[in-house]
């Protein structure tokens, strides 16, 4: 109960700040609109208004404050505007409609999942190689680290162009970018997890004359599970970012990235914000779902109480 109150308090504070921020962000635009509509605004000259700061404008035109939360194309939309837009584009639209946010979220989600599966698989394979081969440890790990220092926003268009030139388009280029972002946390986490058994546990297996594959399946792999889930949670969030970034350079027509792009072309800030919130919500659901799977798997394994 205390927790709920704490969360609600923080939420209320954020929403309050947001509404407050809308006023200075939108006041200039509102005054221009109001003047056009015939209202008396202070100062009357557009040039003077430009030179006066936002807070000066607010002080002189307090009647215009409510209007800063109701603009059609605000610089910063108010929370309820975003909420209404999200409601309209989810519940009130058929999910097959091109204007349904659920449809766009699904397009991004499918690329995210494909990329996540590829990235996770690749990450686990690389980690197993790194743990078992000193050569791979020395050769792969530095490249994996370097790969993550290249800004994805610079790399994404190249990946898409290269794949397009060999005839690959659609979901796969997005999934590749997703995988590119998500394999790294999995490699790092799994290497740590596979190396987590201590010398005593390894010695114990030696006293049974266990071979390498028994050591892997009976000790290293189960010991790495908690590490794997931690990395998966980071990896899936990275996957989602990858899928969205992958939709930007192609001028894709579908997906949350496409909604962001279209919104910014047409100055539809409400649309941008609702796409952003949809992405955040999606990420929260995915990470939450992994958390549920983690708890039940570890509990069944006896590693969580």
């Amino acid at each position: 109960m205390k927790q709920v109150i704490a969360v609600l308090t923080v939420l209320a504070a954020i929403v309050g700040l947001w509404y407050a921020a809308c006023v200075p962000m939108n006041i200039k635009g509102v005054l221009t609109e109001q003047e056009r509509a015939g209202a008396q605004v202070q100062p009357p000259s557009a040039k003077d208004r430009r030179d006066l700061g936002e807070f000066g404008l607010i002080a002189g035109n307090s009647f215009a404050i409510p209007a800063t939360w109701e603009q059609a194309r605000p610089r910063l939309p108010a929370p309820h505007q975003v909420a209404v837009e999200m409601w309209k584009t989810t519940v009130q639209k058929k999910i097959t409609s091109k204007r349904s946010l659920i449809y766009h979220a699904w397009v991004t989600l499918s690329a995210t999942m494909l990329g996540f599966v590829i990235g996770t698989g690749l990450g686990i394979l690389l980690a197993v190689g790194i743990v078992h081969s000193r050569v791979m440890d020395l050769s792969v790990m530095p490249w994996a680290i370097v790969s993550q220092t290249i800004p994805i926003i610079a790399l994404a268009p190249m990946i898409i162009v290269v794949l397009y030139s060999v005839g690959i388009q659609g979901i796969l280029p997005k999934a590749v970018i997703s995988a590119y972002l998500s394999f790294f946390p999995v490699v790092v986490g799994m290497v740590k997890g596979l190396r987590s058994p201590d010398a005593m546990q390894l010695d114990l297996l030696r006293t049974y004359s266990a071979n390498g594959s028994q050591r892997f399946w009976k000790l290293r792999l189960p010991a790495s599970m908690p590490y794997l889930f931690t990395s998966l949670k980071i990896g899936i969030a990275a996957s989602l970012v990858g899928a969205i970034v992958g939709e930007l350079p192609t001028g894709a027509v579908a997906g949350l990235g496409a909604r962001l792009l279209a919104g910014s072309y047409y100055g539809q800030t409400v649309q941008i914000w609702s796409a952003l919130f949809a992405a955040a919500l999606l990420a929260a659901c995915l990470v939450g779902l992994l958390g549920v799977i983690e708890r039940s798997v570890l509990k069944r394994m006896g590693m969580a109480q």
Partner: protein
Amino acid sequence: MNTESRAAAVIEANHLDLTFQTNDGPVHALKDVNLAINKGDFVSFIGPSGCGKTTFLRCIAALETPTGGSLTVNGMTPDEARRNRAYGYVFQAAGLYPWRTISKNIKLPLEIMGFSASEQEERVNKVLELVDLEGFGGKFPWQLSGGMQQRASIARALAFDADILLMDEPFGALDEIVRDHLNEQLLALWARTEKTIGFVTHSIPEAVYLSTKIVVMSPRPGRITDVIDSPLPKDRPLDIRDTPEFIEVAHRVRDGLRAGHSYDD
């Protein structure tokens, strides 16, 4: 030593040396160690830390390779002996896998050694009974006390029926009361199974109470300073520790430790 007891020796070390090469120069962990352990002996290794007790046990288990001398286990090299499942090893920490139940933990060596499922089941029940843990097979390690976990780890070492049990300070991390109880149980188990036991400890009462043979060691270089054959009877209730014989053996162990100049630094 007469020829008969020599023939019965299951572990025999002659002029055994082990020098670790470290960045700070060589460390003589074992120097000229000579020892014969007979079948059915309960041998304790006692000495201050760093005198090579663990190293010697690890040599027997083929976890370390001696740099000189000879060492045989059941007449074989330690490596061959291990492949013939000559020994079970109990570490200081129970080291049970948290993701396996007690039964599954005990099955670990059996799975690796390829026992059939029905035989695994049978052996688990047998050793659980030996260490007094019947009914706990389905529990996870975190559901058991430290003493019970250590008993489970002893059961794991017994599961594949090795003749030799090597134990490196198995009760070192437990409190005195639990330890007394486990010592009593260990003696009962030893009497029932007739195993040969090598037991590392740094407690004088524990060594005297348990052993038929006490090996006193001292450090720098790690070596044996005294080997005491205990005159105590095989049947030992806990209050044997108040008898004059017991106290006399304990004295001799203490003298041996002192003679090793182990406390001057």
